[in-house]
């Protein structure tokens, strides 16, 4: 698979256009890491004896790990996402996934089920809204293919007429409390919270990336909107890989998995170091 990096978009930290050699090296680095990522879940799944009496535990924890790998993988192979406008949105999503995972890991049997039931309730609420909208539009929800499909999907897991809808948080506590209980409050403070500012389009992000102060003294330092051609920062790859690695290490602890090999993250760091030495150091 080739990764198409547009020269107009792909710049390094110092805003210099990438050379062809650098682009090829980055392609190789990304390909190498992606290959490593693809083997992470199979080697873990295949090492376990699956206990179907605890089906939900495997479904939820492996599902969360698969989500984290997917986010990391797609992020790594999409350089257009490595800007400060987009990267934190995805990285925050990974941080959120990690905190949920870490909290569930403290009581896997009970919290896995809770996580599923909450999710099914949200699905039910969503299609109840759709049914309501169809009625308001003068239609018949019973004839709507999407409603039918969603209802059948939900019923295959739990009957809709038995599904509760929870409009609070799924865990019953705030994400901050979850992070505290899951021993990852630092991660919450230094990763989740600052990236939330970007994901929620808060003032801190807007003033840095979407507004610029008028240089005319007559304008009372008025901030005016601007659409920047954002730079990409390849160090964001390392962040995504780090958040995935954090989850993998916790995952291996929960299932007592011991793999006698260097982690995918460590392998990436080694390769990244080579890339860095060759292309980034001299650029300041």
């Amino acid at each position, binding site marked *: 698979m080739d990764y198409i990096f547009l020269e107009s978009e792909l710049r390094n930290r110092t805003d210099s256009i990438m050379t062809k050699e650098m682009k090829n090296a980055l392609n190789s680095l990304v390909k190498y890491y992606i290959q490593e990522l693809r083997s992470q*879940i199979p080697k873990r799944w295949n090492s376990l004896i699956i206990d*179907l*009496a605890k089906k939900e535990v495997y479904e939820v924890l492996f599902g969360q790990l698969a989500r984290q790998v997917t986010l990391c993988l797609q992020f790594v192979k999409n350089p257009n996402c490595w800007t400060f406008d987009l990267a934190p949105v995805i990285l925050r999503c990974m941080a959120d996934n990690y905190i949920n995972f870490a909290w569930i890991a403290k009581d896997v049997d009970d919290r896995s089920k809770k996580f599923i039931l909450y999710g099914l309730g949200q699905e039910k609420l969503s299609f109840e*809204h759709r049914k309501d909208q169809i009625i308001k539009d003068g239609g018949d929800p019973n004839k709507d293919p999407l409603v039918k499909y969603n209802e059948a999907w939900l019923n295959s897991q739990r*009957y809709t*007429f038995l599904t*509760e809808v*929870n*409009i*609070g948080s799924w865990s019953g506590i705030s994400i901050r409390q979850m992070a505290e209980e899951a021993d990852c409050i630092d991660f919450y403070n230094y990763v989740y919270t600052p990236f939330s500012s970007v994901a929620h389009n808060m003032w801190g992000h807007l003033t840095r990336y979407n507004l610029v102060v008028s240089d005319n003294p007559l304008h009372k330092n008025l901030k005016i909107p601007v659409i920047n051609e954002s730079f990409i920062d390849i160090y964001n790859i390392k962040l995504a890989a780090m958040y995935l690695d954090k989850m993998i290490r916790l995952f291996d602890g929960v299932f007592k998995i011991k793999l006698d090999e260097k982690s995918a993250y460590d392998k990436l760091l080694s390769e990244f170091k080579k890339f860095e030495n060759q292309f980034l150091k001299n650029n300041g």
Partner: protein
Amino acid sequence: MFKFLKLAMSNKILDDHKRKGKIFQPPLLNVGTFVETAWIDYAVPEFIWILILITEYGVDKGSVLALEFACVADDYLISKIDNGSAAAIISSFYLLNASEKVEIIEKMKEKKLLAPLRHAFKYFDHIYPESPFSFLNEYSGSEKLKSGRSNLSKYKLMLNKFLDKTSYESSIVLANIANFLLTKERLFVTQESNLPALKEILDYPNTENSKRIASFLRSSVNMCFNPDVYNRGNFWITYFWNQNYEIEPIQL
């Protein structure tokens, strides 16, 4: 976001639900002591034996065999467990002692039903060596199956239909449970209920009456698995699913 949800819900959405804090409970969960049964977790492993008999001998003969066997076993099980459907639930058979097992075998032999019973459960025993029914073939002296693999694809096909609670096969099995409970006078249907006759299930799902009776059966099956009378952590249901997985584990 929550303000928006509250507003939306104050109009129409979920207005039949009972609100408890941030949770909207569906009406059925607020009626009496309704307990939801996880069909795949409990009913499939516990009732699979009835489907095996029906698959092997057809609905008529298989149902007669299932009823006779359940009625014979019921005499030994009913005093051991506070669940009226005990003899229809395979895990209950773990409660039998050696002499009771021999007596059941003798009684089935007298009724000339032992041989077909043994035949039907031969490959079942092979798949599940620790099945509560293994005693049926244990005393037979006949050679155990060396491999149940040839029957496995047939078994998987049957199991696949049974996973769907609303399938024809599942409905027939449920009708067998109801028939057993009616025979033992542990289930009563009042005249006022206007419920179609049980035999209407044979036409499922092609007639309205068959759909009504199937729906009734599906809702009634919950009483067999009420945690007050049924051990939801019993060995068989865990063993059944893990044994299935072990036969064909998923390798990624």
